[in-house]
């Protein structure tokens, strides 16, 4: 079949669009992920307590990257009452975590105050497990930036 005058351009675009996916894409993708995971982003070390430190090692210091803390909180909070965290910031006194700010997109129809309290409770639990720091509800600011209908 002979293409129309501009049909050749349509064919050219179609052939490129419909070309099979690069067979080595999985390898390429793995390389990208490896490079990304090896790429350091700016982090800040946060003081943590050894979970089972014997008395004679109590003065040893353990520090955890703020990214690790934020990622752990993100994973724990995502989807709770269909809310989605959009920002998590640690309040720090030098290297000591003294509180958190959590911004979320909430779900329409939810009791936002109750959701905020539940999110705060989960975040407190994560911080305790990860850093050994005991925060209270007043240390956690939960802000609902938007509502998803």
């Amino acid at each position, binding site marked *: 079949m*002979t*293409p129309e*005058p*501009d*049909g*050749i*351009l349509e*064919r*050219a*675009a179609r*052939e*490129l*669009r419909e*070309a099979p*996916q*690069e067979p080595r*894409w999985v390898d*390429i*993708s793995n*390389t*990208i*992920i490896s*490079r*990304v*995971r090896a*790429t350091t*982003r700016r982090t800040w070390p946060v003081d943590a307590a050894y979970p089972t430190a014997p008395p004679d090692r109590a003065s040893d210091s353990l520090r955890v990257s703020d*990214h*690790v803390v*934020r*990622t752990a909180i*993100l*994973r724990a909070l*995502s989807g709770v009452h269909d809310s*989605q*965290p*959009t*920002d*998590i910031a640690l309040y720090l006194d030098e290297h000591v975590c003294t509180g958190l700010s959590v911004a979320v997109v909430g779900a329409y129809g939810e009791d936002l105050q109750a959701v905020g309290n539940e999110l705060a409770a989960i975040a407190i639990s994560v911080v305790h497990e990860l850093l050994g720091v005991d925060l209270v509800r007043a240390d956690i600011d939960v802000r609902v930036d938007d509502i998803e209908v």
Partner: protein
Amino acid sequence: MVDRLSDHVLVHNAALGDADAFEQIVARYGPEMFRYARNMLSDHGAAEEVVQDAFVAAWKGLDTFRGDAKLRTWLFSMVSHKVVDHRRRRAVPPAEDWIFEQRSTDAHLDPEKRATNDDFLDALGRVLAELPYRQRACWLLREVEGMTHPEIGQIMGMSAGAVRGQLLRARATLSERLAAWQ
């Protein structure tokens, strides 16, 4: 499952340091970014390098992504910049428009001798490689990647009107150079 998460959520999670979310972004947009880089550079190895560099730059710069553009447009901007960087390093002399003012008489465009899709793709690859950079980029982004003129403008740092101009010239040149296949 993170597979079903929207771009919006994936970007937020990745910006908060979630590498798994970024992995989903790579899976979602990587293949088409690679296709674009390969079509722009006509060099498989270079396209691989460029896409890797673009994603690393995106990972580092997620904090600066404000959502003014679509995630896809932003990622294509990254890969477009990396293509330009690569071309600079390789120091490819830019094609001049006058080259395309004469109708091609290349033997390799004879359709009677080259009837298969592979041959057509080979010919298309050669013609694209000879197009001036901006014409080629605009045509690929519009016709293959399905971008709008404003989106292409954001990626290329041009006005939508300038994009239209580049597209017109690209189409005219491609039509002429591929005429033997009609």
